[in-house]
């Protein structure tokens, strides 16, 4: 009986607990998506800056035209 139990345990395969590596799984995904999110944030920030620049420049040109007239 004990021999059979041993045999069954031995036949389980290389890893008994697939959840042992869950920390790495989480870390991997978190880091990956932090990078993705960082890019999205950078896109949004650049967009905002450019919009502000355009407004300011258009304002400058407008003022200039007004004073010229």
């Amino acid at each position, binding site marked *: 009986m004990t021999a059979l139990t041993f045999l069954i345990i031995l036949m389980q395969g290389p890893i008994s607990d697939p959840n042992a590596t869950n920390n790495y799984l989480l870390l991997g995904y978190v880091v990956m998506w932090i990078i993705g999110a960082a890019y999205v944030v950078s896109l949004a920030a*650049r967009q905002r800056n450019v919009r502000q620049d355009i407004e300011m420049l258009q304002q400058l040109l407008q003022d200039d035209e007004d004073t010229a007239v």
Partner: protein
Amino acid sequence: MELTRLNRNVRILNWAAFVTISIALLIVFFYAPTERTMGNVQRIFYFHVGAAWVGAVAFFVALVAGAVYLRRPSKKWDTVAVASVEIGLVFLTMAIVAGSVWGKPAWNTWWNWSSVRLTTITIAWLTYAAYFMLRGAIEDEEKRGRFAAVYVIAAFVTILLSYLSIRFVNDLLHPVVVGGTAEALEGQAAESLQEFAPGVESTRMVISLNASVIAFSFLYAAWMVNRIRLQRFMDEAANLKMRVVARLQGELS
């Protein structure tokens, strides 16, 4: 202008990307089979491959845009190239980092220079990062587009060689997955690198992989559209700047 119309389509695309990524995440975490030798951390593989594959596609798109630009020099092709390289670089970064984290429990080290694949992918990353240094060093817009296009064509050779070496170099550490067919998966099982029960589990793996690739493709499309739109704004700002400078110089003289 066409800004409002762009806004609506862009928003749809953004939502589509978000939805497909979420679905893919669910699939990878719950539907994909559990691997036997290393446990759940193997699930990183799906997004790792998805990012790497779509990244390579992004660089290929850049190559095509570059080639077309050389034939027909128009700003829009240069914009497509810049956007594609930028996004491709982000995807490649994600793939490298994800691969490194996956590698830690699998090979017991964060990095492994003797892995030919890791090394060549890093080289590809450096090559495309240098693309932006080249662009930064050229002031003339036309020359910048031309040189950038030539460089992006030459740089794709590094991508080709990376993927060729992954395919053919006998690197026990980095498993070969091309296309994700059942035979390739069973081949891996034979190498004891990734082990699944044959049959249903292999199919589930294939489906999960495809889901990831589709999700990243949507993400690529969404990011491309946004990046190109950003570039248009930046060009307009540069244009306005020139006019302001010209106006000021006119006033001074």
